[in-house]
């Protein structure tokens, strides 16, 4: 006897496979994605990647967003599905099963559903995990490995999530059961919609709210970097977004019926066989469809804005990238033995990067301070007051300078060349108290690309001579203007030890600067894959890499959200078509008797699909257009110049979303057509 509840529950599911299998499958896919996200955020293979930290955080945030959205969606879909079950509950109730028994059945049903979808989801997650992990590693340019990994924690969290979601669904279903009277469920299907003046009034209200929302969005200033604007604009944007959501639903519920009714009033338009059937059907069931269409419109808006913003950011980011990572890639290799063939090391990274020049770079600066000011004091002053009392010189020997620029500096043995970023007002004095003779050289692009805005001293001699000179003046600095003066903070013994250490270990500090002719992608490849024992590589590419990682992480997050939208669209459309198909099947049967052929049935079905597709996406595109001010403002916050047209990107994204939607729509309409032509059995 106890088994009877299980049997009823199990039979209900297995008899309605057409309803439940897609449900189990879609919730399983959502569980799978959740498992993948959690595992990715915890996997050392991915978190150890450059930018992996950022990625891990993004994956974690993604998991939370994904969980919230999928929960809402699962509950929404469960309403869809149980709509068909209520009649059955009512019959069971009338036959003598009490509500507490029905409660048991509901819980058992949800238990069966949750166990089957969580098992499929987790197995799917484990199976696909390696693939996704490899894709992420490849995407981020890490080192591929083929160990299988398994995250028990992710399994636990996913199970727990299913438990939570299905408990919530069960509780809602039971609450609805207790709130209802069985007789209500046994009444026939919903009645059609009547239009009236109220509809026109509400439609106008919807238009008004939308106009206000657009006005607010458009009043956001074009540049948010000015203080206070970002907070205020964000509040404005959130407020207008809420208004847009409200207006969208009002317009779909009331406006669509109003517009369709106006279309119906035009006899020439309405009395055509395709329009006649489509318009009548649409008007009749618009209120129920309207909520679904409004949801699709909001989802599409999100997808379009997200995609446009991301493309916009990526395109503009190129601009930013080229400023921090110039065409010529310059990397500092430190800890490399002298005479090592860096060209072949770079060649071994697998890309097409060609070494243009390699030269030895002196790793330390010279600093001079004003009289009686030690480096430490100068440095502190610079930190606290922002006023520099010290100036920095990058050092380069004559030979390396030639290697870097391809030109000989025109200096004699007792002269230093100098390239100045900032004008120098005082004389430089070396350790022996001699003033240094300076020859001002012309600014040079190659030099600037390595040393930035620093002042540069070119030493007359090779790197060994420079080392000696540097050591004799003090390892760490100090060329005072008026008299040579060792750092007062160090005792002479400490200074001696430090000098010795530097001299002994110079090889491990020895730094080569390599400039490479390579595209950004090639630079990145070199940066990621260079592999020399004990060598460290630094490059402006590093900044670029971090920047790129953030963008890639965002792209990843965005594509995960897109996957969710995709699942939502497929599932929503599937059930919409399934249940509407079941409702409409008798109508089409009648129409066939009245002389409507299959070709006409197909055409009217597609006409309806197109209308219910064009409306939400067209509105979504308009919504997206008006988000321009805020989105571009946010992008500009990253100090990125935006030179392209956001509107064109919105159009492009709209086209992409429309194509995806069309494909899904056509497939889903197949279900509908099969049902209305009687090729699928009634549910």
């Amino acid at each position, binding site marked *: 006897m106890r088994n009877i509840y299980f049997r009823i529950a199990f039979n209900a599911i297995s008899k309605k496979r057409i309803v439940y299998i897609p449900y189990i499958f879609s919730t399983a896919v959502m569980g799978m994605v959740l498992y993948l996200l959690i595992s990715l955020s915890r996997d050392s293979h991915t978190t150890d990647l450059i930018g992996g930290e950022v990625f891990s955080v993004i994956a974690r945030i993604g998991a939370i967003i994904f969980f919230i959205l999928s929960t809402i969606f699962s509950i929404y879909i469960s309403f869809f599905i149980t709509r068909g079950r209520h009649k059955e509950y009512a019959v069971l109730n009338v036959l003598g099963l009490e509500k507490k028994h029905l409660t048991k059945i509901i819980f058992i049903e949800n238990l069966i559903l949750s166990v089957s979808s969580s098992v499929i989801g987790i197995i799917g997650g484990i199976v696909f995990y390696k693939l996704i992990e490899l894709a992420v590693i490849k995407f981020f340019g890490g080192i591929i490995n083929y160990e299988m990994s398994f995250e028990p924690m992710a399994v636990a969290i996913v199970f727990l999530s299913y438990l939570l979601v299905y408990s919530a669904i069960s509780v809602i279903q039971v609450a609805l059961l207790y709130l209802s009277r069985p007789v209500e469920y046994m009444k026939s299907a919903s009645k059609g919609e009547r239009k009236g003046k109220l509809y026109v009034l509400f439609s106008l209200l919807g238009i008004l709210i939308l106009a206000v929302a657009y006005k607010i969005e458009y009043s956001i200033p074009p540049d948010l970097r000015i203080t206070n604007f970002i907070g205020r604009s964000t509040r404005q944007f959130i407020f207008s977004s809420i208004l847009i959501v409200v207006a969208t639903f009002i317009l779909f519920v009331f406006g669509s019926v109003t517009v369709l009714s106006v279309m119906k009033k035009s006899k020439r338009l309405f009395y055509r*066989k395709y329009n*006649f059937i489509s318009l009548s059907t649409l008007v*009749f069931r618009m209120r129920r469809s309207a909520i679904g269409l409004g949801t699709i419109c909001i989802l599409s808006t999100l997808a379009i804005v997200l995609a446009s913003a991301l493309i916009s950011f990526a395109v503009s980011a190129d601009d930013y990238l080229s400023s921090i990572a110039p065409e010529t890639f310059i990397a500092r290799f430190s800890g490399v033995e002298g005479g090592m063939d860096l060209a072949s090391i770079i060649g071994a990274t697998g890309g097409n990067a060609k070494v243009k020049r390699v030269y030895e770079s002196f790793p330390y600066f010279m600093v001079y301070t004003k009289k009686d000011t030690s480096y430490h004091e100068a440095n502190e002053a610079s930190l606290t007051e922002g006023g520099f009392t010290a100036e920095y010189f990058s050092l380069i020997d004559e030979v390396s300078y030639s290697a870097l620029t391809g030109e000989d500096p025109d200096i004699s043995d007792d002269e230093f060349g100098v390239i100045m970023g900032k004008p120098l007002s005082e004389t430089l004095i070396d350790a022996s108290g001699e003033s240094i003779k300076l020859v001002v050289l012309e600014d040079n692009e190659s030099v600037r690309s390595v040393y930035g805005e620093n002042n540069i001293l070119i030493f007359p001699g090779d790197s060994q001579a420079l080392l000696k000179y540097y050591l004799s003046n003090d390892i760490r600095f100090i060329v005072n203007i008026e008299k040579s003066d060792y750092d007062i903070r160090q005792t002479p013994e400490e200074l001696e030890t430090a000098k010795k250490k530097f001299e002994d270990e110079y090889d491990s500090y020895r730094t080569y600067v390599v400039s490479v002719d390579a595209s950004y992608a090639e630079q990145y490849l070199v940066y990621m894959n260079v592999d020399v024992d004990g060598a460290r590589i630094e490059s402006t590419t590093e900044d670029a890499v971090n920047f790129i990682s953030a963008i890639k992480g965002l792209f990843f997050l965005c594509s995960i959200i897109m996957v969710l939208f995709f699942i939502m669209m497929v599932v929503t459309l599937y059930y919409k078509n399934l249940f509407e198909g079941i409702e409409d099947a008798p109508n089409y049967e*009648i*129409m066939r*008797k*009245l*002389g*409507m*052929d299959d070709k006409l049935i197909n055409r009217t079905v597609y006409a309806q699909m197109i209308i219910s597709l064009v409306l939400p996406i067209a509105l979504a595109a308009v919504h997206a257009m008006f988000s321009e001010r805020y989105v571009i403002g946010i992008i500009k916050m990253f100090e990125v110049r935006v030179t392209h047209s956001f509107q064109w990107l919105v159009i492009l994204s709209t086209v992409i979303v429309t194509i995806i939607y069309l494909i899904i729509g056509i497939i889903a309409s197949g279900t509908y057509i099969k049902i209305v032509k009687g090729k699928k059995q009634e549910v």
Partner: protein
Amino acid sequence: MPLLEVKNVKKIYSTRFSGNRVTALTDVNLSVDEGEFVAIMGESGSGKTTLLNIIAAMDDATSGEVFLNGTNIKDIKENKLAEFRRKKFGFVFQEFNLLDTFSIGDNIRLPLVLDDRKAAEIDDKVIPLASKLGIKEILDKYPYEVAGGQKQRAALCRAAVMNPSLLLADEPTGSLDSKSTGEVLHLFEEIHEDGQTILMVTHSVKAASHASRVLFIKDGAVYHQVYKGDLSNHEFYNKISDSLQVLLGGSR
């Protein structure tokens, strides 16, 4: 030449798995002349509806032939069949079969719209007929908003609006109360008087008594018929009842 001629029609249903064969129609022969109002009577399961479906080309006969205006229905190509049905037949069903997503008016307009008629022509046809059938006031209402009798008038209006060669009715009063039944049957008669040929399937003696000729079908074959001639509906009712009592062993 008769308008409709049914010759040696046989229909055997066989179930897909067991291969059991059920004979619905053994050998049906009948003809209907233009302008006639013919009723076919028989018990439940006697094959009435099967016969109607075969005549309307919605089902295939196992053997035998059906001619409408001399055209063998079998010769009509599959892709022309829907059009043929639309132009030649009007249908009235027991369950009204109105589309619940359409207003009453749009239900009636549907066959004309499917036939690509001009907007002006559509209302020129629909409005007078609807007035005649007493449903002009409810044209903007939806089927769920009106009573059964009104629904069946709307269905009748929809069937007649195309001026079909043959109006087929399947138990048109089966779902109606007696008052509505009387009204609807009266309308059938009116339409018939305007020259519409009608073939009605029913097991209601009252419905059949409005016809000009009644065929009795039993065990899948027509085996008797009575003519109304100059009899009143009431007299014809009695005549049909008597025939039924004799021929079918008293069942009605």
